[in-house]
């Protein structure tokens, strides 16, 4: 077993900004342990002499002319927003009391 703890899953959930319930953390801890155990097999063949591939078809220097293209209007950009003031997205406080 890779030994993933519930505390670790809770920490990861916090990093990923998902407010998981205690039951979800318990389930995910067990599942994650099983999945990570299984996929850890990649380390068997990933020896230092093998280069990593991040992108299947290598491309270099993808440029375009520096001209303004089609952009969304303010109305279009705000159309799907849960809350806005007509020109900006509106959110709740950025900082909590302890910050």
């Amino acid at each position: 077993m890779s030994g993933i703890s519930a505390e670790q899953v809770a920490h990861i959930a916090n990093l990923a900004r998902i407010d998981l319930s205690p039951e979800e953390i318990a389930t995910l801890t067990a599942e994650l342990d099983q999945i990570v155990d299984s996929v850890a097999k990649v380390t068997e063949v990933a020896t230092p002499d093998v280069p990593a591939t991040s992108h299947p078809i290598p491309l270099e220097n993808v440029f375009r002319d520096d001209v303004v293209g089609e952009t969304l209007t303010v109305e279009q950009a705000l159309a799907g927003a849960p809350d806005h003031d007509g020109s900006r997205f509106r959110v709740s406080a950025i900082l909590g009391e302890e910050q």
Partner: protein
Amino acid sequence: MSDDIIRLSASELGERLAAHEISAVEATQASLDRIAAVDGGVNAFLHVATDAALTAARDIDRRRGSGEKLGPLAGVPIAVKDVLVTTDMPTTAGSRILEGWVPPYDATSVRLVREAGLIPIGKTNMDEFAMGSSTEHSAYGPTHNPWALDRIPGGSGGGSAAAVAAFEAPIALGSDTGGSIRQPAHVTGTVGVKPTYGAVSRYGAIAMASSLDQIGPVSRTVLDSALLHDIIGKHDHHDSTSLRDRWPSMAEAVRTADVSGMRIGVIRQLDGEGFQQGVLDRFHESLALLEKAGAEIVEVNTPNFEYAISAYYLIMPAEASSNLAKFDSVRFGLRVTPEGGGTVEDVMAATREAGFGAEVKRRIILGTYALSAGYYDAYYGSAQKVRTLVQRDFNAAFAQVDVVASPTAPTTAFKLGEKSDDPMAMYLNDIATIPANLAGVPGISLPAGLAAEDGLPVGIQFVAPARADERLYTVGGALEKLLEAEWGGRLLDQAPDLTQLIAAQEGAR
């Protein structure tokens, strides 16, 4: 009349439209009527765009009536996977977090099909954010396989495949990250193609794993996929990974398909253990037909494919965890404020808890873990090295053969619910399709027949080198012709009567 229309392939319908024998409004209405009749039992559609489709159809009829020269599929209805953003239809990617969202722009592939005169008739169901192999992870309920309503239609693009198999639409758009076009084709007796990575623009496709995702055609015939591929396979400056190649006509490759002298490699690692007997039987019969038609069948060895699923289930969640960070309750979609309020981060965490389903959370957590300090090199770094090894396996194979072949998936359609509690068992469905995504190479699945033990469809997959997509259409077109000569028609002609299946199901309730 309308029953005849819905059974026409897209290319046949296109010819009848061009000859003024059928109008675009009639073709669109026939699809809409079929959806109204059967989609209560299939659940392939999340949204049906009745008014917009009929308006677009009237416009095509007017243009054709005024003598305008239109493309081969002008006036043909098309279903669009809900992962592609559309200005006139809500786009949810199968998630609650985007329920009711109407995007401010069209995906490039959608724009191209509109420009070619196709009629988008609706958005198709899918696993949430394309994460799954069965559509059971859709927030809006699963899609049912038109061959047997208690079975999965494949995933993530089960909606597009089922819509085509149920004659609700002649053709559809899909997306394929680890097999989401090809595996649904396999279990529904239809055709699906994942083009070379970068051949079709991903602009406006809600990203799961950006280095693996690719948009492609879903259809009932190989020629129809080729015609759609020719329409959407264009360079797009909105996608920095879009290729600038000049492509040959895929439709021409189907029409002139000839496999004599073609070398086909059978992947030893995907031909035996873990595969259902009926799947292997149909696979080998197809190979025998191709051999009789002049192809040379040899065995190829891909020792690193064994590690492909593991690498995929590290790379894909890692990329997905980053891509899904955009669902933050600020610019679009759901916002849930915790009791008593909270900071923007509290709102974000409450929204993502309420808006994402279990599989999406599982993959975000797995991906965040794989990318976190202390584990990055062991997991994500190693997975990227396996990606190199899988590419080398393909390169070695393609030094010997023109295309490689395997069954598309290990089994026929399993029952809804059968694997939904076992993530690892679900992930193994993609064993034969994932290597192509890791390497960026193109693949096709087309019907190979029915498995003797359960009477359900089986697909055969061909994979070609990067940028050699036309070989898929050569071998696919040739095999389809050989098989249909054996069957005396299309495989879907053998499908049970869907209205009777639905009536029986309702009677049993």
